[in-house]
C-alpha cells in the first residue's frame, strides 16, 4: 500500500555530457476532489486530517482562500498568528531534516531524544495564540498569552542554537561570506559544520549546480489564469511559468542573504550553497517570529478584493510556495485545487532533474550519494526511489 505516493527518480549517467534524468510521481494530486460539494466548514474540519504533514501551512492556505472567497472581514492579527505558526512549522521541518537526515548522510547515529521536544513546542505555541479555540476556522479568535509566546520563541532560538550550531544564533549569523563560513566549518563540531565540512572535504561544493531561477511572486490574476483552465490538472502536476521551470525552496527564499549571495557567486546553486541556505533560514526564523509578534495586536482587518466566487490562499511553507484555489457555487465548493512546491521542484525538467543531469563521476556509489544529497537538500515531501542505471 502506498497511499501517499512516491517519486521515482531514474538517473542514466552519460560520461562527458549531461546525464539523462527521469522523474515520475505517483502523488495523489486529485485527492482534494473530495472537498467538492462540501461546505467551507466541512472542508476546514477535514483538511487537517488529510494533510497532517505541513498541516499548518495547508490549513493557512485554505482559510486564506475561503476568507477571500467569502469576503469575510478577518482581523490582521489572526492572519499574523497563523503565519507565526507556519514559521514555527518551517523551523520544525528544517530541524527534523537536519537532525534526522543529516546524521544518516554522514553515516552517524540519530539522537532521537534531542528531537522529540520540538513537536510539543509547536502545539504549545498554538495554545499560546488561540487557547482552546479553533485556529483554522472562518472566525478564529485570538486569546494571546504574550509572555508564553515570547518564552517559546526564546526557547526555539536556544534549541536551534544548541542542536544545530553549537552556539547562539546571533553569533552564527555574523558569518556573512565564504571566508568566515570556511573558518567556522573548520573549527566547529556542530552537526551543521560536520555536514558542510563533508561537502567541502569531498569537493562537492558545486554538485548539482544548474541554471534555474527562484519562482517569482505570482499574482492572483496569474494563478487564476493558470488554474482556471479545463486542463489545470496538468499544470498542477508539472507546473511551469512563462514556459520555464522555477525553484521554490529555502535557497530561493534566502538568495538575497549576504552569505548565500557570497556562496552563489563562488559555487552557484550547488550543494554547499543549497545546504547552507537551509541553515541560514533556520537561524533567522526565531527573530522573524519576534518581529511578527509586534503585529499580533493589530486592530486592522485584512482587505479582500472582490473575488467572483473564487478564492486563492498563498503560503510560504517549509518546502516552498503552497497555493490553494477554491471555487464555490451556491455555498458549496465546486472546485478545489492545491499547487504544491514539490511539483515545481521535482518537475521532470525542474531544479532536481537539471542538478542530477549535471553530476559527473564514473563511480556509481559516489553518484548515488551525490544524487541522494541533492534530493535531500531540495527536500520532497514524499518518499522517493532513486535508481542510478
Amino acid at each position, binding site marked *: *500500500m502506498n*497511499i*501517499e*505516493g512516491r517519486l521515482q527518480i531514474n538517473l542514466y549517467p552519460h560520461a562527458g555530457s549531461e546525464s539523462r534524468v527521469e522523474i515520475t510521481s505517483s*502523488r*495523489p*494530486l486529485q*485527492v482534494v*476532489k*473530495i472537498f467538492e460539494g462540501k461546505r467551507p466548514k466541512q472542508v476546514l474540519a*477535514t483538511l487537517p*486530517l*488529510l*494533510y*497532517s*504533514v*505541513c498541516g499548518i501551512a495547508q490549513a493557512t492556505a485554505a482559510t486564506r482562500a475561503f476568507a477571500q472567497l467569502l469576503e469575510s472581514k478577518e482581523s490582521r492579527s489572526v492572519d499574523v498568528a497563523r503565519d507565526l505558526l507556519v514559521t514555527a512549522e518551517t523551523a520544525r521541518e528544517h530541524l*527534523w531534516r537536519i537532525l*534526522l537526515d543529516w546524521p544518516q548522510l554522514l553515516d552517524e547515529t*540519530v539522537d*532521537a531524544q534531542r*528531537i*522529540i521536544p520540538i*513537536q*510539543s513546542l509547536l502545539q504549545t505555541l498554538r495554545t499560546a495564540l488561540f487557547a482552546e479555540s479553533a485556529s483554522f476556522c472562518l472566525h478564529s479568535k485570538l486569546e494571546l498569552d504574550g509572555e508564553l509566546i515570547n518564552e517559546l520563541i526564546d526557547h526555539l532560538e536556544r534549541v536551534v542554537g544548541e542542536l544545530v550550531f553549537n552556539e547562539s544564533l546571533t553569533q552564527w549569523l555574523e558569518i556573512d561570506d565564504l571566508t568566515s563560513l570556511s573558518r567556522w566549518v573548520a573549527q566547529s563540531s556542530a552537526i551543521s559544520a560536520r555536514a558542510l565540512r563533508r561537502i567541502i572535504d569531498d569537493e562537492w561544493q558545486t554538485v548539482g549546480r544548474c541554471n534555474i531561477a527562484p519562482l517569482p511572486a505570482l499574482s492572483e490574476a496569474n494563478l487564476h489564469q493558470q488554474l482556471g483552465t479545463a486542463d489545470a490538472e496538468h499544470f498542477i502536476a508539472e507546473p511551469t511559468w512563462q514556459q520555464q521551470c522555477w525553484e521554490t525552496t529555502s535557497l530561493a527564499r534566502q538568495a538575497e542573504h549576504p552569505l548565500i549571495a557570497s556562496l552563489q557567486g563562488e559555487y552557484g546553486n550547488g550543494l554547499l550553497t543549497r545546504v547552507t541556505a537551509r541553515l541560514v533560514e533556520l537561524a533567522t526564523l526565531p527573530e522573524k517570529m519576534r518581529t511578527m509578534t509586534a503585529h499580533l495586536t493589530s486592530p486592522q482587518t485584512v482587505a479582500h478584493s472582490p473575488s467572483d466566487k473564487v478564492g486563492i490562499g498563498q503560503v510560504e511553507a517549509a518546502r516552498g510556495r503552497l497555493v490553494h484555489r477554491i471555487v464555490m457555487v451556491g455555498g458549496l465548493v465546486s472546485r478545489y485545487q*492545491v499547487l*504544491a512546491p*514539490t511539483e515545481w521542484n521535482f518537475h521532470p525538467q525542474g531544479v532536481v532533474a537539471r542538478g542530477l543531469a549535471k553530476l559527473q563521476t564514473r563511480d556509481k556509489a559516489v553518484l548515488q550519494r551525490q544524487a541522494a544529497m541533492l534530493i535531500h537538500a531540495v527536500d520532497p*515531501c*514524499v*518518499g522517493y526511489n532513486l535508481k542510478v542505471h
Partner: protein
Amino acid sequence: MCLALPAKIISIDATTDRAIVAVGDVKKEISLALVEGAKVHDFVLIHVGYALNKISQQEAERTLEIFAEAGLSGEKPA
C-alpha cells in the same frame, strides 16, 4: 499534498526505538524517534518511515474514511 497515514502500533523494539505498525492489513516498520511515550496499541500518523504524532482511534478511523472517500484506500485500521 503531503499525506500521512494513520497506523496502529503492533510492537515496539525499545532498543532501536522502532515499531511495527499496521495500516489496514499491511504492516510496516517505522521509527518512533519523533513521538514521546508511544505504546503498543496506540495510533500514530506515519510519514516517510517516521511516526509524526499520536492520534486517537477516532481520528485514525475518520482519516481512513477520508482516504477511502478519496479512492485511496477502503481499509479500516487494524
